[in-house]
């Protein structure tokens, strides 16, 4: 215990870095699937097909009603029992973050698409664009400004929520920190470092989201 906090941090850095890499991997994969799924959700929700809308509504409400941590346990314990599927807890976390994120990003995309003037759709159709071309060249690019700030904000939520993965046994940054605490009892220092780690990842994103929102508010 004679060693200073700084020395301790230096010694533990590789272990924390390895954990951080896991945390960032879960977050990045979750964000990737949330974005791809969210755009798909948003486009599907805009087709105006009743059965599709009902299915999306059920999907959304399930992820809004059941907390993410509960979903983590449902998938972690449930998949092996109900489907005989045993997937590593890392991928359980990615799966849940991706599905939950997709419903939230999807609502953002849906709202942004709906805010576009109806005529944009008709003008695109009238020059013979296909459905994919219509969304790819005309509608989504115009919805981009409106959906980017809230989506970046959701990314910070996904990153913060990725911390819950430790509770289903993923050896990520918190677990790495706890292992160091078991050796050194430096809990204030380590948990302080963990808070700072997430802060330095999330704060720039939230700040960027705010700046973009203000800049694009009137366009």
């Amino acid at each position: 215990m004679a060693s200073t906090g700084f020395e301790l941090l230096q010694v533990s850095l590789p272990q924390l870095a390895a954990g951080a890499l896991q945390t960032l991997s879960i977050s990045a994969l979750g964000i990737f699937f949330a974005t791809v799924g969210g755009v798909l959700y948003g486009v599907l929700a805009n087709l105006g097909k009743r059965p599709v809308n009902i299915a999306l509504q059920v999907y959304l409400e399930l992820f809004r009603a059941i907390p993410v941590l509960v979903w983590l346990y449902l998938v972690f314990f449930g998949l092996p029992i109900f489907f005989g599927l045993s997937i590593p807890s890392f991928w359980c976390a990615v799966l849940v973050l991706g599905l939950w994120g997709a419903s939230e990003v999807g609502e953002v995309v849906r709202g942004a698409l709906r805010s576009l003037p109806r005529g944009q759709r008709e003008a695109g159709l009238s020059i013979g664009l296909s459905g994919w071309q219509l969304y790819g060249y005309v509608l989504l690019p115009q919805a981009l400004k409106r959906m980017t700030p809230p989506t970046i904000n959701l990314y910070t939520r996904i990153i913060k929520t990725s911390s819950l993965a430790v509770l289903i046994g993923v050896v990520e940054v918190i677990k790495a920190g706890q292992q160091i605490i078991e050796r050194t009892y430096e809990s204030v220092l380590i948990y302080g470092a963990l808070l700072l780690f997430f802060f330095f990842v999330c704060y720039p994103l939230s700040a960027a989201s705010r700046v973009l929102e203000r800049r694009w508010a009137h366009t």
Partner: protein
Amino acid sequence: MSALIEFQGFNKFFGEQQVLEQIDLQVQAGEVVVILGPSGCGKSTLLRCLNGLEQAHSGSLRLDGKELLAPGTDWRQVRQRVGMVFQSYHLFGHMSVLDNLLLGPLKVQKRERGEAQAQAEALLARVGLLDKRDVFPRQLSGGQQQRIAIVRSLCMNPEVMLFDEVTAALDPEMVKEVLQVIQGLAREGMTLLIVTHEMAFARAVADRIVFMEAGRILEQNPPERFFTQPQSARAQQFLEKFSFVESLPKTLHKELS
């Protein structure tokens, strides 16, 4: 000779309400048909059906002899042959003027960029907007945007153009610049279907006036006959509301030249 466009016993409903009732209308190639009628009479819906933006319920609609209401109709093909211009222009706000014009030719028709761009620039020059090639729609006036929207449709090399109240959203001083472009197309012999409230323009440009009310076609006549001796009482009433037309120059042609 069979007509280029042929509506027959054509019906369309919005929910319970019938908005088009037993429409019979033939348009020959090269003909300029102006559709007149009070607001809500179904004239815009008629154009939109021809572009596949609305679906009909029954009857027949042929383009060049081919039935469009049959299941398997490729509307993307039809829309390349039938261009449409809207009241509020609907240019794509995130694209420059040139990109607006090239989207269809490059992505839908898969044409070569050099050739498509040359055509787009020639058409821009024709409507007097070549210098606006690289600006964005929001930097343009309404009249300029509408002329670009017309060029956007023309770049697809359509056989027919549909104009749906294209001057209704414009400030009065910009109406003329848009109508001139349409009149130029009419002179070239393009097939045009025009919905408008500009009576003087209708009279000057039309080969035939179609008068609609409450989803029905009440009469079809050459413009001089329609404006001087309307057949139906409804058309007479309609024209009386626009009686100030009398005080306008006899033809728009004179005013413009």
